[in-house]
């Protein structure tokens, strides 16, 4: 499979105990994992902190990762676990983590950038976490339902239905915003 072939150099470097694996992992997965973490935490700062912690955990578990059958799914599972640990440590919920620094931004040629980003962010933050992470991966990282299903360990139908429910909810939120 293509994905496994793309992961082969990373797993080889991990198996050889070569620190260059960190750079390879960063180049291939950092953006996707940061999006996933931001979707789960609704906070850019928290997502960056958890991503850093995740890379340290990856280093500790490098021998397990070198043998992982599907590296990407293992990384997403680790990211989910790190998120749960972070939230447990912080002892605050999703709404409390939405702070000044936005995790969405708008393109430079559009006016009222900050307001639009805040508006979309607030609508996304009102979605259930399971729907929000699929919406973010589909819309912003352009993953297919099949890829999302493999990454998150769910069926493609579940991913599609969560996406549809999320979009329905977003429609009602964006058309009739609750103050």
């Amino acid at each position, binding site marked *: 499979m293509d994905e496994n072939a793309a992961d082969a150099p990373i797993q080889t470097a991990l198996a050889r*105990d070569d620190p260059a694996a960190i750079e390879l992992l*960063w180049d291939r997965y950092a953006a996707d994992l*940061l999006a996933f973490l931001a979707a789960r935490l609704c906070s850019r700062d928290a997502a960056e902190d958890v991503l850093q912690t995740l890379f340290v955990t990856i280093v500790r578990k490098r021998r397990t990762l070198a043998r992982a059958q599907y590296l990407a799914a293992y990384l997403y599972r680790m990211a989910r676990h790190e998120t749960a640990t972070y939230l447990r440590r912080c002892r605050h919920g999703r709404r409390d983590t939405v702070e000044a620094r936005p995790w969405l931004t708008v393109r430079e040629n559009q006016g009222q950038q900050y307001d639009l*980003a805040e508006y979309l962010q607030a609508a996304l933050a009102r979605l259930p976490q399971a729907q929000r992470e699929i919406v973010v991966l589909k819309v912003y990282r352009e993953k297919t339902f099949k890829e999302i299903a493999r990454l998150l360990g769910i069926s493609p139908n579940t991913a599609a239905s969560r996406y549809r429910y999320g*979009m329905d909810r977003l*429609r009602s939120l*964006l058309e009739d915003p609750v103050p």
Partner: protein
Amino acid sequence: MTESKRQPGDIEQRLKQARLLEPTPQLRDRASTAAKHAWDTAPAEVPWQIPLRRLALSAAAALIIVSAASRLGGLARPRPRPGVNTGTSTPNPDLEELTETVYGASWSRLGTGLRRSSEFGGAARRDKMGTLRSMLNDIENEGTPAQPTPGGGRSRLLPGRPRVGSHS
């Protein structure tokens, strides 16, 4: 087309007016430095050691729980105090008194048998003792038992003894 059957494309377009922020070079440096430091200092987890470590932790936890329960159970049990009858193995005072009478040996054997017997409860044992004591008193005072033994013959518990006043 109704509201609920609309395709999500329009909402997608609105969402795509924004984009996610990419990882910054500063974040890359920070994360890479932390990861390389961990690579140099912390040993890698060996996969086969993980279940063994969990097993050892579970065994240690079980040991701690069992020993704590045993110790707390020992503390909760009342300690024997002089003059206070707390245990079930304390000899029955009635039996102790009876062993000092003329039929001491028989009572002693009876008491031992009763203690060993599991079919006698506390109340049943007291009733039996009361009956036997009254029979013994009758024998000593009058020479004949007030009630005949159930078998009609002489009780095997009582040693053969000539009647009072039968020999002169």
